């Protein structure tokens, strides 16, 4: 049986991790649930976890992000408490990504509204002739 752990990272003004936990418990699914500092972790059979999480995400599709996790919740090699302080490296990665979740949420909202974003212009390096011109002007003044 394919048992997995998925984490829900919650960055929402509508729902709190505790709300999500209650919703998960209400489902009566055969899964293990753990609330964490960044959201919730859910372990169980892949099909069950996938279905439950995509249902739960509907609470706030723009505020709940999901990814799989290699280790089960509370794994001593990954837990801060047993590592005596510092977080596992993956935590800092999550911390970094968490900061732009509001912008990604905006992107998703715009997509659902059918907005087509403006293409960003690539910055080109200044042409040599132009640079030469600027230097010559600077020398004169």
């Amino acid at each position, binding site marked *: 049986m394919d*048992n*997995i*752990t998925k*984490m829900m*990272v919650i960055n929402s003004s509508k729902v709190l991790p505790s709300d999500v936990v209650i919703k998960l418990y209400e489902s009566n699914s055969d899964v293990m649930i753990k609330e964490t500092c960044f959201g919730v972790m859910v372990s169980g059979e892949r099909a069950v976890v*996938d279905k439950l999480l995509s249902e739960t995400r509907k609470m706030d599709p723009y505020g709940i*992000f*999901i*990814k*799989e*996790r*290699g*280790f*089960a919740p509370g*794994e*001593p*090699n990954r837990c801060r408490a047993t590592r005596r302080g510092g977080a*596992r*490296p*993956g935590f*800092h*990665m*999550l911390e*970094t*990504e*968490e900061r*732009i*979740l509001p*912008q*990604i949420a*905006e*992107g*998703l909202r*715009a*997509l659902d509204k059918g*907005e*087509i*974003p*403006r*293409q*960003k212009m690539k910055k080109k390096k200044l042409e040599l002739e132009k640079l030469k011109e600027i230097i010559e002007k600077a020398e004169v003044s």
Partner: protein
Amino acid sequence: MKVFIYPTNSLILSDLVERFGHEPLAVMQEISKRVSNPGLDSPPMNITPEDPKIGLKYAAVEVPSGVRGRMALNGPLISKAEAAIIVRDPVVSFGCMGCARTNELVNFLIRAKKIPILDLDYPSSEEEAKEFVFKISQFLKSLGQGEKK
């Protein structure tokens, strides 16, 4: 379709690929396999000294063991990949993505596969994030329905 993501441990990419109906190939799945293998020591360590040897498939013994060990995780994902989304300049990426040499090799191998690839810059504003999400959705749509589970 099975979509390789880079950074391989990215929450955002993993989430978006799944949201838009495809299967993200993330390094967490490889780690999970190792952790749940009952043959390993207790407490389970996700990588054993055997992994850098498996990594010899991708790089010779003169390449540091940490690179080869990471390749043992990334290699199976690369071989399964049917498409890839690559963020060119992720701000910081740690752990499985913490070694620059491994990342160069992963990037090379995925490009050498000649599968559909979307290259993106890491967004630094709301406008850019909109473009980021839009491009990913368009790319994934262009791959068709694939094998959505």
